């Protein structure tokens, strides 16, 4: 186990290092340095002013010198300052993180419950009306692009209802920290939660259903039934535990990706989380901020992968980590 953790940590760091190199490479091959200096200098700036600004931000130095400065800063726990507002990158990320985490926690709870519950019902009552309803609904949401679902939600549940005197749902852009008022927090986030949850839950319904049906064909289920075990116990004790393995994988990966920001959902609902921040930073070529966000996002994915593998070993005693 210790060797496994050490090896995986090294692999993770290698991937992260490659990622920082890629971001740096793209920035310097692309319009990056010139773009930033010109935007900061303003429209009427003389070439001298642009050069001065580029110099002040060290943008006139060769990329490897800047990369070296970045690495040294990183080792001191300093992610640098963003180009436009001169804020510490770490501070910007930390202030965006609660919003993204609020989104992820609520949405993940919703889709896990919805997906697993509908998957179990569909598998136990195969070909019933419930199975058909759930499978069709799942396919419907599975085919839906996140931005389409989010915008349609705003159109129907916010715009249409509010215009007809039924203002149940919060306007896009509303966000109340959970520390202020947990009820308003949940109320403001209902539509974004369901946007993420419905698109994801569809995958879980399909996964859980297929996985349970596979397990029902196993010998040990027949053995359990022939021992006279109640069907409820067969379903929940014997089948569900084994069927949850693919769900755990999927869940880990999905949450890992979302920590890096639900870019589309945050943008549509005007929530300034990690995804929204990163999108803005990329469009503005704000290298230090992009770097910070990419590190957080990739670390999220890598960590999630690691946790999934450890989770495997816990759920399934046959798995050995090495």
């Amino acid at each position, binding site marked *: 186990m210790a060797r496994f953790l050490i090896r995986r940590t090294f692999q993770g760091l290698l991937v992260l290092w490659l990622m920082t190199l890629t971001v740096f490479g*793209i920035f310097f091959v692309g319009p990056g340095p010139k773009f930033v200096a010109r935007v900061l200098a303003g429209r009427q700036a003389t070439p001298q002013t642009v050069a001065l600004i580029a110099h002040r931000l060290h943008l006139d130095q060769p990329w490897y010198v800047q990369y070296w400065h970045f690495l040294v800063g990183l080792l001191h726990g300093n992610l640098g300052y963003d180009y436009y507002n001169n804020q510490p990158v770490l501070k910007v990320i930390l202030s965006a993180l609660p919003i993204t985490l609020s989104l992820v926690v609520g949405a993940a709870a919703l889709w896990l419950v919805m997906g697993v519950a509908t998957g179990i019902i569909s598998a136990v009552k195969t070909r019933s009306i419930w199975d058909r309803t759930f499978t069709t609904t799942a396919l419907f949401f599975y*085919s839906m692009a996140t931005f389409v679902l989010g*915008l349609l939600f705003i159109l129907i549940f916010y715009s249409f209802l509010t215009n007809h005197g039924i203002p149940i749902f919060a306007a896009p852009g509303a966000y109340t920290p959970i520390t202020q008022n947990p009820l308003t927090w949940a109320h403001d986030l209902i539509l974004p939660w369901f946007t993420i949850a419905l698109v994801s839950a569809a995958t879980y319904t399909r996964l859980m259903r297929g996985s349970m049906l596979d397990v029902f064909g196993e010998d040990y289920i027949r053995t359990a039934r022939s021992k006279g075990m109640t069907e409820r116990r067969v379903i929940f004790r014997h089948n569900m535990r084994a069927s949850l393995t693919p769900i755990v994988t999927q869940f880990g990966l999905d949450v890992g990706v979302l920590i890096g920001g639900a870019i589309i959902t945050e943008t549509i609902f005007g929530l300034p989380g990690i995804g929204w921040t990163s999108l803005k930073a990329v469009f503005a070529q704000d290298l230090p901020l992009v770097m910070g966000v990419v590190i957080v996002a990739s670390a999220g994915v890598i960590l999630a992968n690691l946790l999934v593998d450890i989770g495997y070993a816990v759920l399934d005693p046959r798995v050995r980590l090495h």
Partner: protein
Amino acid sequence: MAFNIQAAVDAGTVVGEAPPGIAGEPAKKIEGKSPWVLAWRRLRRDRAAMIALGGIVFIVALAVFAPVVATITGHGNLEQFRTTGLDPSGQPVRPSGTFWFGTDDQGRDLLVRIAYGARISLFVGVVATGVTVLGGTVIGLAAGYFGKLIDSILARFMDWLLAVPFLLFAISLFSVVQVHPIGPIKPGLPIVIIVLGFFGWASVGRLVRGQVLSIREKEYIEAARALGAGPWRIMFVDILPNLLAPLIVYTTLLIPVTIVGEATLSFLGVGVPPPTADWGQMIGSASGIFLYGPWWYLVFPSAALLFTTLAFNLFGDGVRDAFDPRGAMTA
């Protein structure tokens, strides 16, 4: 996308053969049904899949006959109707006898633009998926067959690819080729296809690699090697045909994913540039104004996108069940 690849492979390797006719008697014609024929028959009996196929044919027809739609309505794809297509305050007009689906923010006919938008969606959906599957197959074959160093380098590369925040990198790459077009790679269709292919092949690669690892240990591969077959011949002639069934299934299910990917890029403004008609781009510009009234500008392109991906997903499910009858019986 979870489906039982192993079962699909098994279905692909069991070749039904007609027993030889008994000597002396005129051999009774026993038809040998290849797994392909069997799969096709199962697919034809699947009503949902056939309806979905009808939907796909409809969208393809819409794309092909987009100019006909333009002729019928009398509105060009890029034509702006500043007087009839926009109300006095410059807002799009709602669906009517003249503009069946209403107009967009430039006073263009939405129906005609949706028809033209189908061309981009389908083209990117098919071509980018093709690039993805082709690249993933070749790299997966190489990684699985050669193993060792090549395999571990490719595995790290795939780790890196799968950890990359896709949208952020797509946007960055877009801004790069905007300043430095690399040959034919410039903003628009080429970069969209390359981005989708580049970030998509790893999943195909992993799938193929896993299959190759088990197939290359089989006796007939050893036999081929003993007969002096080179690595390329073994990879493409002896191993690849076994992977065709799962690859076809995967490809069908990948097309809707790719179509959504293209729409997302265009929605964010880094896909197909205006004035080319594109669904994602339409939804993107609608997202800024639909709250002020023109719901049709959001709803119709969204419906077109959903209809297309739904049809492909439904059909893809049918194809999977056709190649994997065991799953179909329980599913």
